[in-house]
């Protein structure tokens, strides 16, 4: 019985960490779905979101949820600008171009952050006290982050489902030619979705200095985990990324607890490899979706 309780406790804990993975991976998947670009620089968007949140806290004591209203728009516009200036030029080109372009962007953002923000790790403490929930202690900030992440994820689903632009994004990602024939400005849609994707990463990043530790290189670990998430969820599938993010959060937490953190990390990478070998299109979605 105690074993089962522990199992549930760590599943819940993992679920909460997984919410951040889900946010980030959804952004990655959205970008891929619309323009077939794997944004290798996605981790750096997360990192930038983290610094926005950190500086908002250290300068004016803005809490991370409030700073989302700064981080998300900022990342949204940054994403749109980067899309317009760089990514747009390689849409439809061989994937070598977009992969290497994003790799270059990632290095510049990472090294630029080293110069601007120094490599020092940063963080701040917010709502760090245990709350009893269902008989277990959870840190308050974790509950808040989880709730906020869920709200953002569902807001994105709602946006895609119910608004005109959301529908346009879905149309372009489903069939680019048909969408264009229907009078949708695919270029604007690409800009918009890259912006949204970056904003999602920024939102996930806003929690990093509270939950983890923030440094310019933090994106690397998250991008690798996000790849595992989107591969399991099916590149391009938002629901897939959402569910797979939560799932992998749980798996990571359980393996870390029962076995070792090495094995947990290895699981992420092994998952990428295993899924690609069994189903090159991911578990839930297909490469076309």
């Amino acid at each position: 019985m105690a074993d089962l309780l522990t199992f549930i406790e760590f599943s819940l804990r993992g679920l909460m960490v997984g919410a951040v993975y889900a946010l980030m991976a959804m952004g990655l998947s959205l970008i891929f779905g619309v323009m077939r670009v794997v944004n290798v620089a996605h981790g750096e968007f997360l990192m930038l979101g983290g610094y926005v949140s950190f500086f908002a806290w250290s300068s004016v004591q803005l809490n991370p949820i409030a700073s989302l209203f700064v981080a998300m728009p900022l990342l949204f516009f940054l994403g749109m600008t980067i899309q317009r200036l760089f990514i747009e030029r390689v849409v439809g080109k061989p994937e070598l171009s977009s992969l290497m372009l994003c790799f270059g962007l990632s290095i510049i953002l990472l090294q630029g952050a080293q110069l601007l923000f120094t490599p020092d790790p940063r963080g701040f403490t917010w709502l760090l006290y245990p709350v009893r929930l269902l008989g277990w202690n959870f840190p308050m900030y974790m509950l808040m982050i989880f709730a906020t992440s869920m709200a953002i994820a569902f807001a994105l689903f709602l946006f895609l489902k119910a608004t005109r632009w959301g529908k346009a994004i879905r149309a372009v990602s489903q069939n680019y030619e048909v969408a264009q024939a229907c009078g949708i400005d695919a270029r604007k849609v690409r800009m918009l979705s890259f912006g949204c994707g970056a904003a999602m990463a920024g939102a996930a990043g806003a929690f990093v200095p509270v939950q983890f530790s923030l440094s310019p290189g933090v994106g690397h670990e998250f991008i690798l985990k996000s790849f595992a998430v989107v591969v399991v969820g099916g590149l391009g599938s938002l629901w897939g990324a959402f569910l797979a993010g939560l799932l992998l959060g749980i798996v990571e937490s359980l393996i870390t607890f029962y076995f070792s953190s090495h094995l947990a990390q290895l699981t992420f990478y092994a998952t990428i490899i295993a899924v690609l070998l069994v189903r090159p299109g991911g578990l839930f979605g297909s490469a076309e979706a």
Partner: protein
Amino acid sequence: MREDSPSSADRAAEARPEIVWERVDRRVRRALVWSLPLILLFALAILPYMASAYTVTLTFLVFFWVATAQSWNLFSGYTGYVNFGYVGLIGVGAYTTAILIGKFGAHWLLAVGAAGAVTAAFGFLIGIPFLRAHGIYFAIAMLGLAEGLRVLFSMDLMAPLTGGGAGIGFISGMSLAAKYYAMGLVALLSTAVVFLVANSRFGLQLLTIREDELAAQVMGINTTSKKLMAFTLCAFLTGLAGGLYAAYVNYLVPATMFVTAYYTLIPIVMATFGGLGTTMGPVVGAVLFTIISEAIWARFVFLHLVIFGAVLIIIILFMPQGIIPWLQDRRILPRTRWL
């Protein structure tokens, strides 16, 4: 719908301007083609006797980057499959050397040779499943592989061999000159292999994979086996280079040996800058880049990698083909696979 004019073929043939290189007198060209490499080789051969240890070490590193850029090019430049896990191959080679010398007291020649063989075998075994994944999926899988290797090499499971997270140190027993010549030979070998491949049917078959893999298949080309051959060859050369690099580092830690942003980035930038799918491009890229970054490194240590990233973006956006094909397109150099 595009329209054809019947004479477009003739027109195109007429409109072809002369290639600058071919304007040079034939005898002069031949003399240059033969003498330049010989002079260069001679200069490099006597370098350890003439130059300072700093210059020799720097040239050793140029050799390492030539070898790695060339090996990356051999697979990714020709087939278009982006190998983002390249550092994994360097790591396997480096660790093989370190383990053989550090744990079994092997001679460095044996250890480096074994690094090539082990990495080739590793590349072959990994290639069978990994090369099933296409395009972006391959790139992602390789990125996962490199990171997975980092974790695997630090796990207790492997610790008796790799020393785990604490790393493995050893004394290679090589003098600086020995390292220099050995790496020089590996760089030369890599370039020679790419040269031979580029001028062979095998090279053309690899190019068809980059151009249009499906079309290549219906043209009767077994793209899977060609990719696997190229990948194994790339792994072999990388293993040799990585093995010798280990002798230079003398101490390997998974956390610093498997740094994607460094060991994968730099060969990619160098090869892309010089020209993917060319023979001389990676050499030109590696030499230029080491000189430039050494000049910059001295002044702006932190800008070093930023510049690598920026150059990568600039190449992709404005000169996606790289220097050598760019010169070829402008009819300055002849369009031959030799270059």
